[in-house]
C-alpha cells in the first residue's frame, strides 16, 4: 500500500478527495432523504447509484493511472464518467428538491422541518458539485509521479 501511495501524484490525490466528496454527498443525500417521511428522496436509488459509481470511477482513475501511467485513456475515461456521474447525482437531488426550495423561499418560509432538510440537501449538492470541480482540477495534473 505504501508503495502504491508513493506512486501517486497531485491528480490522484484530487481524485481521492473527489471520491470522498462523492461519498459525503451520498451520505448527506441519504440523511436528508431519511429525516422525514414527507421529504424522502423519491429517486434516492438513482442518486445513490450515480454517487457510488462516480466515487468508484474516481478511484478507478487513480488505480488505472498507477497501471498505465499518466493521462492514460482508460483512466481519463473513468475520470470523465465520474464527473458525469457526480453532476447527474447533483442534478437528481436538485430536481427532486426544487419544489421544496421554491416553497421555502416563498409560501412556505415557516416550514422549519423543510429548512432542516434543505440545509442537508445543500451539503449533498455542494459535495457533488465540489467533487466535480476537484476532479476537473486534478485532470490538469499528473496522477502518478514520473521519473525525472
Amino acid at each position, binding site marked *: 500500500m505504501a508503495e502504491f501511495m508513493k506512486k501517486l501524484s497531485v491528480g490522484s490525490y484530487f481524485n481521492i478527495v473527489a471520491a470522498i466528496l462523492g461519498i459525503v454527498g451520498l451520505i448527506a443525500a441519504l440523511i436528508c432523504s431519511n429525516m422525514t*417521511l414527507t421529504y424522502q428522496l423519491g*429517486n434516492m436509488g438513482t442518486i445513490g447509484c450515480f454517487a457510488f459509481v462516480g466515487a468508484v470511477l474516481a478511484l478507478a482513475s487513480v488505480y488505472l493511472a498507477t497501471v498505465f501511467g499518466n493521462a492514460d485513456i482508460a483512466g481519463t475515461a473513468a475520470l*470523465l464518467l465520474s464527473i458525469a456521474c457526480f453532476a447527474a447525482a447533483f*442534478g437528481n437531488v*436538485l430536481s427532486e428538491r426544487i419544489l421544496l426550495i*421554491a416553497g421555502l423561499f416563498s*409560501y*412556505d418560509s415557516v*416550514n422549519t422541518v423543510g429548512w432542516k432538510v434543505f440545509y442537508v440537501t445543500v451539503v449533498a449538492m455542494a459535495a457533488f458539485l465540489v467533487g466535480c470541480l476537484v476532479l476537473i482540477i486534478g485532470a*490538469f495534473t499528473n496522477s502518478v509521479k514520473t521519473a525525472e
Partner: protein
Amino acid sequence: MKKTNIFRGLAALMTFLLSISVIVGNTLESFSSTIDTALGTQSEMMVTDDQDAVYNRFTPPAELLNEDGTGNSHALIQAAIDLNRKQAAEGTVLLKNNGVLPLSTGASVTLFGIRSQVPILGSSFGVKAFGGFINLDEALQNNITDFAHHITTSLSQNWATGQVERGYTTDGWSGDEFEFDGAGYKVNPTMTSIYQKLNETYLHTENAGPSEEYDPGEPSVKEIESVNASYKDSFAQYGDASIVVIGRPSAESEDYLPGGIVSGLGAEEPLALTTNERDAIALAKECSDKVIVLVNSASAVEIGELKDNPDIDAILWIGAPGSYGMLGVADILVGKTSPSGGLADIFATYNMSAPAMQNMGNFSYKNADVITRENSSNYIIEAEGIYVGYRYYETRYFDAVLGEGNATGTAGAYASTSGWDYDKEVAYGFGYGLSYTTFDMEYEGEPVFNVKKDGDVTTATATFNVKVTNTGNVAGKKSVQIYGQAPYERGGIEKSAIQLLNYAKTDLLQPGESQTVPVEVDLQYIATYDSSFDNGDGTFGTYIADPGTYYFAFGNGAHDALNNIMAAQGIDAGSLVGESNASYAYSTEITEDLLSRTAFAFSKTGTKISNQLPYADWNYFQEGEVTYLSRADWNGTYPKSYTDMELTNQELIDYLNGKYYTIATDDDTSDIVWDKEGDLMFYEMAGLDFADEKWEELLSEMSLEEAQYLATFGGPSIPGATSIGTVETYMTENAGNGVAVNLNASKDTEAPWNIKSDDPNGNWHPEVFESSPLTAAAFNPDLAKELGEFIGIESLFTGIPILWGPGLNTHRHAYNGRNGEYYSEDPILSGYTAMEFAIGALEYGLIAAPKHYAFNDQETNRAGVAPFMTEQRAREVELRAYQIAFEATKYDTEDNNAGMRGLMISFSKIGPVECTVSTGLMTEILKKEWGFTGYAVTDIYDDFDLYGAVLTSGATCYDTRGMSGFYTDTTLDSPRFANQADGSSISAKVFAGDARAQQAVRESAHNVLFAIASSNLMNRYNATTHVVKLNTWWRTAYYTAIGCTALLTALFVVLFILSRKKKEA
C-alpha cells in the same frame, strides 16, 4: 504544463459543463410553464386552424377594446382604477363622527403616522397589491397618477448580502398615467417628508405582514424631531384637520399571537395601540382640533379607547384598500361619497376576550412521539363552539340582559370592571357603520313566507320588503341587513341569539328619495344542526327548525338588530346597551304545520343529511376531555386553553399517521369502461349539463392513464388527453384580488384582444384590488359581482380560465394573519359575497375556486394542523359560507346550474383527518349535499404521500404548481409521489385492481372537464385545436450550451488522444 494534461483537463471541464447543461435543460423543461410565467416567455401555444366559432363564447366588453378588436390596456387600467375606487368608498366604514366629516375640499391637513406615507394596501405574501399605486396624500391633493415613481413594495431578503430590502412589485413603469379628481386638500409637506425620511430606516412597505412578535414600527416623537426639530411650525398652516393612520397588516403564512408584540412598545397585544401611536394621535391633537383616525387594517384593531376619547372626532376603518383604493377613502373624507359600509367583524375592546383566542397558536400533543407522519403533531381545540365573532358577544349580551346562563360571570371578562359587561367588552359591533345622511327604514307590508316541498326537499324563504328613505341632506346608500333569532331552550342545542340571514343595498338615494329593497332570507340558515338527532335509519344528525316564535329584524349591525328584537320581546329599554326600536323587528310563530321540524333534513339536491364529520370532535375519540362553550353556563364553560392534549385513542393516532385508504389490487374493474372507440371530442361538450349522457361517452373514450393524469396534475398546467382532443394548458392562477399574470404575458396569445408584449402598459399586473374584508363591508351583492366580472375580464386578457380565489375561510378571531384574504367572521356575509364574485367571474368564463375548504382557521402550523370542533360548529359557521356559495340558490334554476365550479382544499385537517382525504367533507357534503360538480384541487403539493386516499375522497386533483411536460418530462411515477404513507408505488398501473379508485379518477375527470367546459378556455377549442411548441430564449440558450459543450468535449477528447499518441510516438 504538458499539452496532454491541458487537453485532458479541458475535456474534464467540458464534460462537467455538458452535464450541467443537460441537467439545466431537463430541469427547465420539467418546470417550463412556471419558467415561462416568471420570464414572460411562451413555450407552447394553443392553435386552432379553423378560426370559425372560436373566441365568440366569452369576450371582453366593447369599451375595453380598440376599434380593431385588440385590447385597450389604457381603458382596462382606467376601469380597474374606477372599480377599486368605488369598492373602497363603499367598503369604508365610518365608525365615529362628531360632525368633522366630511371635510370640505380646499382644507389644509396634516397626516400623522408612518402608515400615512406607506399605507397597507395588500399583503406581503398572498394577495399583494401590485404595481403603480395612488398614495393617500396623492389622493388627497393630486389629480394625476405618478405610477412611474410610486410602485408598491414588499420586503425581501437579499440572499447575497442577507440584508432585508424593500423590493418593488413591478419592474418599473413606463406606461400611461391616469387623471383623477382628488379631494382637493393641501397636505402638510413637512410631516410627509419626515415620515418618508424615517421610512428609509423603518422599511415599511405597502404589502406587509404580521409576525409572531410584532412591532408596528411607529416612529417616536423624538425620531420625528431628529429629522426636523421645527416640524411643529408647519401645524398652523395645515391645521384644518389632522388625519392619523394606524396600520396593522395581514398576510399568508404568519399570524399574530397572543402576547406576540415586541416588549417596550407600551402595548400587551399586537393589535393594541402602542405608545408611539398614541403619541402620534397626541401630536395630531396639537396640530388641529379636528382629529380623524383611519384604521388601515384587515383585522380588528383595539380602538375602544379612541371611541371613548372626546378628542377623536372621527374614525374610519379603511381595511387594506388596494392599489387605487385611497381614491375611495379620499371620496369619503371629502364627502363625494357618503359612507355606507358596515364592519365585517366585530371590534372587541380587547381581542383576547373572544373565546376562540383561548385556543389559537402553537399547540403540540403531549405525546407527539406517537406521530410518525409529517405535519401531524399540532392541533387546536375550537372550544368556543358556534360562538365565533359577534355570535359570542351578542348572545352573551342577550343572556346577560335576561339574567340567564351565568352570562354576567367573570369568565371571559377583559374590559369589564366586575362581571362581564357588553358595553365594556365591545367597541363596535358587526355590521355597524355610520353615514353622512340619515335614513328612515320600515317594513313595507308583511314579510312573504314561501314554503315549498318537492319530494323530500323543502325550500322555505321569507322575503322582507324594507322601504328606505333618505331623510338627510346628502345622497347616500344604505345596506339593509336582515337578522334572525330562533327559539332557544336553555340547555338545548346551542343557538346564537342573533345571526345575519341576508342583506341588500339601496341604490344611491337622493335626499328625500325612497326605495323598497326586497331581502329574501333562506330559512335553512336559521335552522340548527343537531348532531345528536336520531334520523331513524341508523344515522344521526340533521338540521332542526324548532317550532316556536322566530324573530327577524333589520338594524345598523347585529347589535342594533338584537336590541330591536329585544324591544319587540318587551325587554325594558333601560337594560339595553344602545338604542332599540320594536317596529324594526318582526316576529312570527312557526308551527310544524308551516314548517316541519325536520324540513331541512334533505339538502337542496335531495340528499338526506346526517353526520359526516364525527371525527371533528375530540370527544368522539376521547370522551369528556373537551368542554365546548354553552349558553347554559357562560361562566362555567368559557373555554380554557387546551395546551397539553395527550393522544390515547388508537383510531385517533392512526388517522394522524395517515392510515386512511389501502389501494386494492384485485377488484373486478370490468364495469368501468376505458379506451372505448369513439369520435366525441371535448370541444363538443361546451355548455352541456353535468348530467348529460354525452359525458359518459366522452369519459369512456379516455384511458385510465389519461384520467389519472388529470386527477394527479391539477395545475397551473393541466395535462391533455389525446383520446378526447384536449391539450396540455396553463389554466390556473391566483388570486382573489386579481389574476396574477401580467397583461403582456397572456397564456392566450391567439385571442383577438391579446395585448401585445410591446404595449406600453404591458407590464400592468392585475392584482390591484382591495382586501376581502373591505369587499364584504360594502354589504353590496352587486358590487361583489362587479368585482367578479372585472376579474373575469382580466382572465380573458391573461388567458387564465381558473382562479385560485377568493379566500372563503372564516375570521375565527382577529389574530389570523390571513384575515385580509377572507371576508368576514360571518358565514352569510362571506358566502353571499363569494357567490356573487363567482357568478360574476363565470359570466366571462372564469372559474372561481374559493379557498381553503375548510377550517384554515390560522396560519400557525397551517400545514396539517388539526382543528377539533363540533359538527354543528363546522356546518353552521365555516361550511355555511361554502354552502351558500356552492348552492347559489339565488341564481340556480332548473335550466341553469349556477353553482360554483371550483374549489381549493385546505392544508389543514378536520379533526385528525386531512381535509383532502375526508370523504365526508369532499363527497358527502360537498358533492352530494351541495351538488358540487367542479374542480376541487388540493393546496400546493399538499398530501402527496396520501395519493390513494386523496383521489378517492372526492378531491379531483392535486395542485402541482411548477410541473408540466406531462407524459414525457413529468410522469405518474414522478419521484415526488414516491413516498406513500401506505407504502404503495404510484404509476399508471397503480389503480389497475382498484375499482373504487378507478371510479374516483373517472369522476374527477368528469368534474375537471365539466368545469373547464364552462370556462373561457372553450374560446380556444374546436376540432382543429392543437398545441404548437415554440422556442424560447432560455431553450435556445440551453440547446446552444449543450451543443457547444458537447462539441468542445469531443474536440478536447480527440486532442487529448492525439496529443497522447504524439507523445507515445
